[in-house]
Each structure stands twice: as C-alpha cells, then as structure tokens.
C-alpha cells in the first residue's frame, strides 16, 4: 500500500472514526444529517444563485438574499462539512483513491477559491449589483459557476458509493429474495 493508503488507514483506524464505522446507528444518522443539511442549506445556495441569474426571488434584492442568508449558509456549511468529515474519515482507506472522492474534494477546494475570487466583485458588492440596470456579467458568471460546483459536488458524493462497487450496491430484485409475498 502506498504512503497515502497507510495514512488513510491510520486515520480511519483512530478510535473516533472506528466507533462511527462500527456503530449501526451513528453512520446512518450522520449521513441523514448530511443529506438534511443539503436540503435546507444547499437549497439556500441554489436559490441565491438563481436570484443573481434573475430566475427566482425577483422581489427580493440580491443584498437581502446574500446578507440574510449568510449566517445560515455558514452554519449549514459547518454542519455539512463536519458530517462529511465523519463519513469520509470512517472509510478513508476505502475512499482516498476513489476518483469521485478525489474529484469531490477538488471541487470543494474550488468552492473556496470561488468564494475568494468573487468576494469583492459579487458577494460583498451586492448593493452595486442591485443598483445596476442589468445584472453584471461577473455576478452571473459567479452564480453559474456556483451552481456547477455544488451540483458537481452533490453528484460526486453520490457516485463515490458506486465506484467499483456497483454490483453489490445495486438493489437485488425483491422477486429473487422474498419468497412468500401475501
């Protein structure tokens, strides 16, 4: 095993991650929390992007959307990422060389780059965006990139589970497994 494999194994072997992996309840509860925060807080990210693109929430200014949702998006991001660290850490030796996992981590890093890159021109400049007769191209670009990044992260997250394990993860038709159906 490579040095990365050894490190990943050592991380997932820590008491904390072992406990998560081996608990019948913790793992699904953490994953459900991860998914619930995608629903509640991920939806806020999507709606902010759609507002900037002029496709939703047109009665609300971009300033109101961005400012009022900022603390909730931070909270959601913290919940999503901490749940994600627990899920990923518990099975890191299995995930570290999974291309979908690697792509997801890359896209998450690009989310950070995106936030920094458009901070001054878009996200801390919303009053100017609201005053502009038409939404500036830089804001629309930021919104489209944000949509692509987050939908990509979501998709990679789902595909992690299918890498080289599609056979065992695919549901077995019930007709083959349940003999007595009333």
């Amino acid at each position: 095993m490579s040095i990365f494999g050894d490190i990943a194994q050592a991380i997932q072997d820590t008491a904390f991650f072992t406990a998560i992996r081996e608990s019948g309840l913790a793992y699904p509860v953490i994953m459900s929390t991860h998914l619930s925060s995608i629903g509640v807080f991920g939806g806020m990210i999507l709606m902010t992007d759609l507002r900037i693109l002029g496709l939703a929430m047109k009665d609300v200014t971009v300033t109101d959307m961005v400012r009022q949702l900022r603390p909730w998006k931070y909270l959601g991001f913290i919940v999503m990422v901490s749940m994600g660290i627990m899920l990923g850490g518990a099975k890191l030796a299995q995930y570290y060389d999974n291309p979908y996992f690697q792509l997801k981590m890359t896209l998450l890093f690009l989310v950070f780059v995106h936030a920094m890159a458009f901070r001054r021109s878009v996200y801390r400049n919303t009053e100017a965006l609201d005053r502009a007769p038409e939404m500036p191209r830089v804001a629309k670009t930021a919104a489209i990139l944000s949509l692509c990044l987050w939908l990509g992260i979501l998709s990679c997250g789902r595909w992690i589970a299918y890498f080289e394990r599609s056979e065992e993860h695919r549901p077995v038709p019930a007709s083959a497994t349940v003999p007595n159906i009333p």
Partner: protein
Amino acid sequence: MLAYDPATNPLNNNEWSFPLAECFHIASFAFSVGTIALVDLRLLGLGMRHQKASQILKNTMLWTLGGLIVVITSGLIIFSSDPLRYFYNDAFRFKIITLFLAIVYNYTIHRSVALKDASGAGAAATAVVSLAMWVSITFAGLFYAFT
C-alpha cells in the same frame, strides 16, 4: 400478478442510471425543501426578516412545486428498480406516509399561515412542524438504504 420483472429495468442493467436518478432526486429535494425552509426561517423570525413570509412564499412557490415534481418523479423511477423491497420496508412506508402528510400540510396550513404573514408562537410552531416533517422524510430515505 404484475407482469413486471425488475431485472428488465434499465436501472438494474447499467452502471450510471441508478446514481443519476439519485442525483436528480437529491438536487430537486434541495430545491423543494430548501425553498420551504426559507419560508420556515421567516416564520420562525430567524432569517429573511426584511421580507414578509407571504412574499417569500410567492417568490419560491414555483421552485418548490418544480422541485417536488422532479423529486417525486425521480423517486418513482428509483422505486421502480425494486418495488417489492421498497413496499415491504418500514422506513420506506414511514417515508411515503410522512411525505403525503408533508405535502398536504405544505399546501394547506403552512401556506395559509405564511400568506397571513403570521408571527409569534403559532407561526413558529407551523415552521417547526414543517421542518421536522421534511427532515424525517430525509432520515427515512437514508434509513431505508441501511435496512
């Protein structure tokens, strides 16, 4: 008997269609639940306070409806991959019953409370019930996968 064999379903016969259906399911779920949560946040008085609840409802309802249509359609497609296993699963049954209640609730009580721009304990309780139902549906969906 149904003349349907899940083994012939495309979802069980290629590598990509099942996860793709799940991606649509989760993304559209983010649209529907995320937009409902915006109204809930306002009813709780915790966010979007510059707007009225009715204004947020009217601004989000098309996206909520669109999200619900796609989430249910993709859900039915996923269900078709193994109908009997879903049907005889307690977590799945809980999910479907709660989903039905949540949709009825969303378009009756939740909607009228938001349209009245209600505030205070009643509005907060309406929002808490709404959030609790949608989160339970998510949990049930995940717990199905682990049973």
